[in-house]
């Protein structure tokens, strides 16, 4: 168990409001990722981090920002939520020493933007 906790697990918000999702890990792994899952699109990478204050964009980064001020926390922020950002968001880590591609996922955060 890689010890990933996502919060909140469920959130309903209104268009235009800011939203922050948190991913917390307990084992100091270097790589952390945020994906969104939508029917017909699978899992798409939003942003990822390869260390404290080191982040990069994924394929669907528009409208999202991230921050990693501590090894254990990776925050995903929607500055002004839109209905198109209604989705299930998954945080994942690459465990230290694991082979590239062997990600461990959190339980997901279901976000509904009205």
């Amino acid at each position, binding site marked *: 168990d890689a010890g990933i906790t996502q919060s909140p697990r469920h959130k309903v918000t209104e268009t235009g409001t800011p939203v922050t999702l948190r991913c917390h890990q307990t084992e100091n792994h270097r790589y952390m990722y945020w994906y969104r899952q939508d029917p017909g699109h699978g899992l798409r990478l939003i942003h990822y981090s390869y260390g404290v204050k080191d982040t990069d964009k994924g*394929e669907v980064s528009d409208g999202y920002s991230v921050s990693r001020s501590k090894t254990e926390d990776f925050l995903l922020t929607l500055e002004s939520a839109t209905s198109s950002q209604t989705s299930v968001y*998954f945080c*994942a880590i690459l465990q230290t020493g694991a*082979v*590239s*591609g062997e990600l461990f*996922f959190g*339980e997901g955060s279901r976000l509904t933007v009205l």
Partner: protein
Amino acid sequence: QQQVKQSPQSLIVQKGGISIINCAYENTAFDYFPWYQQFPGKGPALLIAIRPDVSEKKEGRFTISFNKSAKQFSLHIMDSQPGDSATYFCAAAGRSGGGYQKVTFGTGTKLQVIP
């Protein structure tokens, strides 16, 4: 641009039958090809994976077949069971242009195994 294409989108298989899911990739820089299994309400979990220097890998009832020249790989589930009913994702992993580890997923296949 979908770098990993997966088919079919959904699949219904009789108990005891063989489930086959196919994937194709474009980027030859990918160097690891995992499959993930996801049950409703849960995050995806690593099921089985293969490197491109191997043509086949088997773990129990699950087998990956890999064709490097065609840039295709597939998951075979032998003797499919109702407990295998889940969504399956293929993926391809490698280093990004910046040298950091990235994993790209297919669109998923929802498998239903009926008794």
